[in-house]
């Protein structure tokens, strides 16, 4: 069974996303909404990992064949500065959050096939929150983009 590979992937992705949100919060402290919401989202990602812990306990994390390494991603790089840097950073966050989101969907599919009610409940709550994070990132990027791309110096 390869589900443990994906449990490992989602766990690690949530951790990367939490780290990235914290990095963003620190780097863009002059944008209070981004600062505070990124910190809140980082906490949310950690909560997702806590909810996942008992599931990982049951299934284990590493499947055979070393897939976790191959599936590893690099998170986001060093934060940028300035209005354009902010927009690019938000886009990086968006890509990472998308990975988390779609990984939850895959895990959900497996949980359905396994008739694992406990895992399904975990997925439902976490994936909903990830979807809201994505919606917020889009909302914020849509607000920034015109000013950044047309009027910023």
């Amino acid at each position, binding site marked *: 069974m390869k589900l443990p590979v994906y449990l490992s992937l989602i766990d690690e992705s949530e951790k990367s996303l939490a780290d990235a949100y914290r990095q963003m919060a620190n780097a863009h402290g002059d944008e209070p909404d981004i600062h*505070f919401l990124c910190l*809140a989202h980082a906490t949310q990602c950690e909560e997702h990992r806590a909810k996942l812990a008992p599931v990982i306990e049951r299934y284990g994390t590493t499947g055979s064949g070393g897939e976790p390494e191959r599936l590893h991603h690099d998170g986001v790089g060093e934060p940028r500065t300035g209005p354009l840097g902010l927009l690019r950073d938000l886009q990086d966050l968006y890509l990472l959050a998308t990975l988390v989101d779609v990984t939850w969907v895959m895990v959900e599919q497996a949980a359905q096939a396994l008739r694992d009610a406990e895992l399904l409940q975990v997925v439902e709550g976490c994936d909903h929150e990830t979807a809201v994070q994505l919606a917020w990132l889009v909302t914020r990027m849509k*607000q920034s983009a015109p000013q950044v791309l047309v009027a910023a110096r």
Partner: protein
Amino acid sequence: MTEQGRTITTPGSRDRVEDVWGTRTPFGRGAHWPERVDQLLADGVAEGDVDRWVRSACVLCSNGCGCDIAVKDGRMVGIRGRADDPINHGRLGPKGLYASWQGVEHRDRLTTPLVRRDGVLEPASWDEAMDLIVERSRALLEEIGPLSHGFYTSGQLFLEEYYALAVIGKAGVGTPHMDGNTRLCTATAAASLKESFGADGQPGCYEDLDECEALFLYGHNMAATQTVAWSRVLDRLDGPEPPALVVVDPRRTPVAKRATVHLAVNPGTNLALMLALVRELIANGWTDDAWVAEHTVGFEELAEQVKPWTPERAAEVCGVAADDIREAARIFGTTDRVVSTVLQGFYQSAQATASSCQVDNLHLLRGMIGKPGAGLLQMNGQPTAQNNRETGADGDLSGFRNWENPEHVQELATLWGVDAQKIPHWAPPTHAMQLFRYVEQGSIRFLWISATNPAVSLPQLARIRDILSRPETFTVVQDLYLTATAALADVVLPAAAWGEKTGTFTNTTRTVHLSEQAVEPPGEARSDLDIFLDYARRMDFRRNDGGPLLDWAGPEDAYRAWQECSRGRPCDYTGISYDDLRRESGIRWPRREGETTSTDRLYADGRFPTSPDECENYGHDLLTGADVGPEKAKALRADGRAHLKSAPYTGPHEPPDDEYPLRFTTGRATHHFHTRTKTGRSPELDAAAPSVWLEMAEADAAERGLADGDAVEVTSRRGRIVAPVRITAIQPGTVFAPFHYGYWDAPPGAEERHPTAANELTVTEWDPVSKQPVFKTAAVQVARAKGE
């Protein structure tokens, strides 16, 4: 003579400064609130000396009391309440009596335009000033485009002026960067109404205060902010069958002193309390399940979200007794007619929109909306805030239209004769704090500020002063006086005041009044409408058919154009003409063409403007402010049902810690309005509340060895103020300062040496949905002032 119909001529003494709410005229539930006509004339002027009385309404709080202005020899010499007005039945508060006309006629008035030459503001002609403005505006539009322009306005202009500015901003310049100081006072009222009901618009009316059996004031010190509305409540409290009163406020305000239950919550914890109240309603079966099923969506999610919020858990977070929460919930849950009012204690605090939406939820859960005495009032802080929201000078699309709905945008494009593309609608309008951030970053380089004083009213003032002083930003300020903000401008335009111009304005409960010109403005001062129209003419803004974008000659033309814009919308004004307003004292919208009666209460039929083609926006996630968007909104199929919305509790973002152990909260003084631009120039009001103070609980003061009257220094991570301390019954751990005290009447350099503006301390942060700044939850330390 009986109380009814009595005219109380208030002499030019300090009577009504001390007796803030005037003599009581008690009345029973459902009875007519007795008339009591308040009047004040200048010293030495007798009633017989008055040449004429001119119809108006008071512009010093969101109540908007109907009044007449006394004119003698071309000067305003007094004021009296209108007995036939539905808002005040003749009464006026101390601000209306002493600062409406007195504050306007003052030696400090600006009488000529000023332009900055070699760093100094010097008198100039209108042509010189307007040429400078137009030259810079044109150059920036050419070089960068509309995103280089920002407009920051007020909650105190007239409807006609806001509408002119909205059309100029959206269809002339084409910028999304428009907002008003309504963002600081009333944005959450609008946001919560849109989230719950689909569109802005106050569901209840003041007559509900006459009918109710219980009144809940959430973060609303009505006794100070709306003195005449509080007189109405006092008259109920002192009459037969008084309503139960529940008050949520960390301070023991005059309102809290009359409360049946006073919930003195820690600042920033409103949502925890509200989730517990909602939970109690559900847990005790006090909900109207049939009504909820038929008229709302979202019950399951709400019930799930509030489940953990037992009264005990909320009590711990909020610092109140669990039994008091239970008692408040019991009153709400078991009383037939409850009125709720909400104001800055919720709107300027953490999780503002989410907290305010819970008030809507309580009413929805009991089906208690649109019926006499079952009123819901998401209040405004400023007199014409409602107009700013309706017309869209705050950036919203005019007439409560939805920027994400292409048909709504096209309606405006057709009305204004421009391409839909001209009207910015790719994202929500830029909110005030973001607008100033763009100025700080240099991407907005033309900033036009009218009738407001951000150098005192915005958070973190040192930063705002820096932003306004930036040499590369061209700043225009239009006001009555040389405010702290105007002093930093490149061009200052002298504006006409209330009483010196004609226009309409709409109070917090949808009631429209006409205010007619009583006297000529001083010197070369012009009405804000004239100034905006002059700018549009000089910029040569045109419709696609070649005609001028704005061909209005005066206020009545602007008003008629607005009536067309409002046609068919929730705020329909087509049945309210200037002549109607001259005949009737105060008319509520909506009133459609041909109708002769007003709609007292919205949603009496349990139908809400939530269908996708009607709604003002598609809603937000209340925790993050993420747009729900058209597809998801359509999938929800609210279709006329109200939304029961909620968010998890997170608490304030700057909680007290070891270094800054106290919670700082700001608020209003009874005798002042906004930054005292007018009220500080009324001798009586200035004498009543001349300078800033700090309120502290006895234990907190004792811990620091402070006694009543000691001078203290309050410090946050952003700045400091120096003020004498008053020991009061405030919630321990919390300190309070009134927000009015800037520096226009202080010695030069007071910002540095003896700072008194509460916003030196406040945090730059805002609610994720309404974008209203958080003025109520900074962490501070307090110590004896050095050298004292």
